[in-house]
């Protein structure tokens, strides 16, 4: 991808891990990368953020698993996936062979699950770092999701940070469905998060006018796509204003380079493109190109200069 670039230095980092591009996939929106190979040069991405993995293989929820909504969609996949064994045996070696950095999203329902996943990923070739999905609203759990409680969220993050490879940065992925996202961000940062991923989906519900019941078997689902972008940019803005030193991986409705630019200006040093990939399988590469052009047109010589620029 670099050959197509403008003169802008697009390198960035996730914590201590350097990235060739600030544009990543979003967890759960590009599976494990393979399927995008016909459409984009995977090695040109900042990283593939993998679908959240748990300890055991999961079937995910029954269908219907999605509903289209205005400028967005609702999903309730239920974290279908191969489990950590499957990931270590199949997907991660595939990515490593091709030189595609993996940012591995981990999920669980108990603090120990997260810690064990982090331990299993220590030193695995090609694993750039960990994104801790404490905010997925789709998975059944007895109570609140971790991300809605600063204490529970911190417990997960400190356990993961303690168990994880010191060379792998740990990002906590936050939910926007909270009264005060800054307090959650502060708590997980103090608990050792090297950075923050924002945002996960918003909790939503669609009722089918024909069946007159919720469309999704799981009743509620996660709302994503351009519809939620203003909420995501607001979260990034608020957290960057309060914690300017904490790196942010921004996401939520990014479809174009100018959308990505909003996140960068608000304080994100890298971005994930999620739902837009369903619309345009080459969206990640296009967003990289458009962002580079937009930065060049605005006189930036590097991406880093633009991070948080809207606050100045």
């Amino acid at each position, binding site marked *: 991808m670099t050959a197509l670039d403008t003169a802008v230095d697009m390198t960035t980092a996730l914590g201590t891990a350097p990235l060739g591009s600030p544009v990543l996939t979003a967890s759960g929106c590009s599976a494990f990368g393979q399927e995008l190979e016909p459409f984009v040069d995977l090695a040109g991405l900042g990283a593939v953020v993998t679908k959240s993995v748990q300890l055991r293989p999961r079937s995910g*929820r029954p269908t219907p698993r*999605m509903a289209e909504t205005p400028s967005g969609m609702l999903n309730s996949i239920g974290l279908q996936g191969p*489990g950590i064994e499957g990931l270590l045996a199949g997907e991660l070696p595939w990515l490593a062979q091709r030189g595609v950095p993996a940012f591995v999203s981990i999920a669980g329902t108990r603090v120990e699950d997260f810690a064990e996943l982090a331990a299993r990923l220590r030193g695995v070739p090609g694993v750039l770092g960990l994104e801790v999905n404490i905010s997925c609203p789709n998975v059944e759990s007895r109570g609140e999701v971790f991300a809605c409680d600063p204490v529970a969220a911190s417990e997960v993050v400190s356990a993961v940070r303690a168990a994880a490879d010191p060379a792998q940065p740990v990002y906590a992925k936050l939910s926007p469905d909270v009264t005060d996202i800054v307090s959650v961000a502060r708590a997980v940062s103090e608990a050792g998060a090297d950075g923050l991923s924002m945002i996960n989906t918003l909790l939503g519900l669609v009722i089918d006018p024909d069946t007159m019941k919720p469309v999704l078997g799981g009743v509620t689902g996660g709302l994503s796509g351009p519809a939620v972008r203003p909420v995501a940019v607001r979260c990034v803005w608020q957290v960057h204003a309060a914690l300017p030193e904490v790196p942010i991986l921004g996401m939520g409705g990014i479809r174009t380079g100018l959308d990505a630019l909003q996140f960068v200006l608000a304080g994100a040093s890298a971005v994930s493109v999620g739902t837009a990939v369903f619309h345009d399988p080459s969206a990640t590469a296009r967003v990289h190109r458009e962002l580079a052009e937009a930065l060049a047109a605005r006189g930036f010589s590097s991406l880093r200069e633009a991070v948080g620029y809207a606050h100045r």
Partner: protein
Amino acid sequence: MTSYLTEPAAPAAQPPVQREVAVLAARPVGAYVELTLAAPEIADRAQPGQFVAFAVGGPMTAHLLRRSIAIAGVDAGPGAGTVTVVVAPHGPGSTWLAQRRVGDAVDVVGPLGRPFPLPDPGVPALLVGGGYGAAALVGLASLLRARGSRVLAVTGAADAARLCSVAELGEVADVVAVTTDDGSAGRPGRVTVAVAELIGEAGIAYACGPMPMLRAVADAATAAGVPSYVAVEESMACGIGVCMTCVLPVVGEDGLTRFSRSCTEGPVFGGDRVRFADVGALPWDVVGADAMGVVAP
């Protein structure tokens, strides 16, 4: 372990492409609209059973998800390079597609999904299409004929306007049986009547159409000891295998049931491998159901 009559369909020979293509022709066919697209790279790669996925609504659209449509025909000859689809206006996206006119540009990804596996040359085949699903079988019929198969086609629909590709199938198939629920064309009733009569002559069966029809054809074939392949239609958000919305319970070669993506592991599945009765449910014996808290009875 039960033994199965089918092997899972193999992946397509070539990867898909994403292109903005022009509409070359748009004509109503009964209740549907047939669009011919100038899409040489897709035409070159397409195999019967595959589909394409369209972006809908134009540059200002609020509808982000792609609409999957089966490939009804390809003309890959030199200087040609066209792909034909038959669209049934249903919701906003398919209605928009059906309104495209000659010269309009559409953004399309394809060919997607696994093609129909082919039998040994000469094996007689039964092809069953329901509604616009019949269109997806025309290419398969030609290919089978070219490989020396006798082709028995059955096409059915709710009414005459919803019948599809009867003439096209008539040109390539040895037999074409037509049924309509209301009797407005062909024999009154469901395709199953014709299927019951013809399955005995077939060494393999194929079906494309609504789920209940696929199930009936698969069951009839399996009961007759005939392997069958069905092209399923599950609600899809991406069409390329990355979203996991389009799954249904399918029995793999190891005998285990998994939630398989109908876009990349299908849309063509062995008819005896799709657990039709469990579509939309989460049976306890699906791999990973235990992690969802579902316990064996």
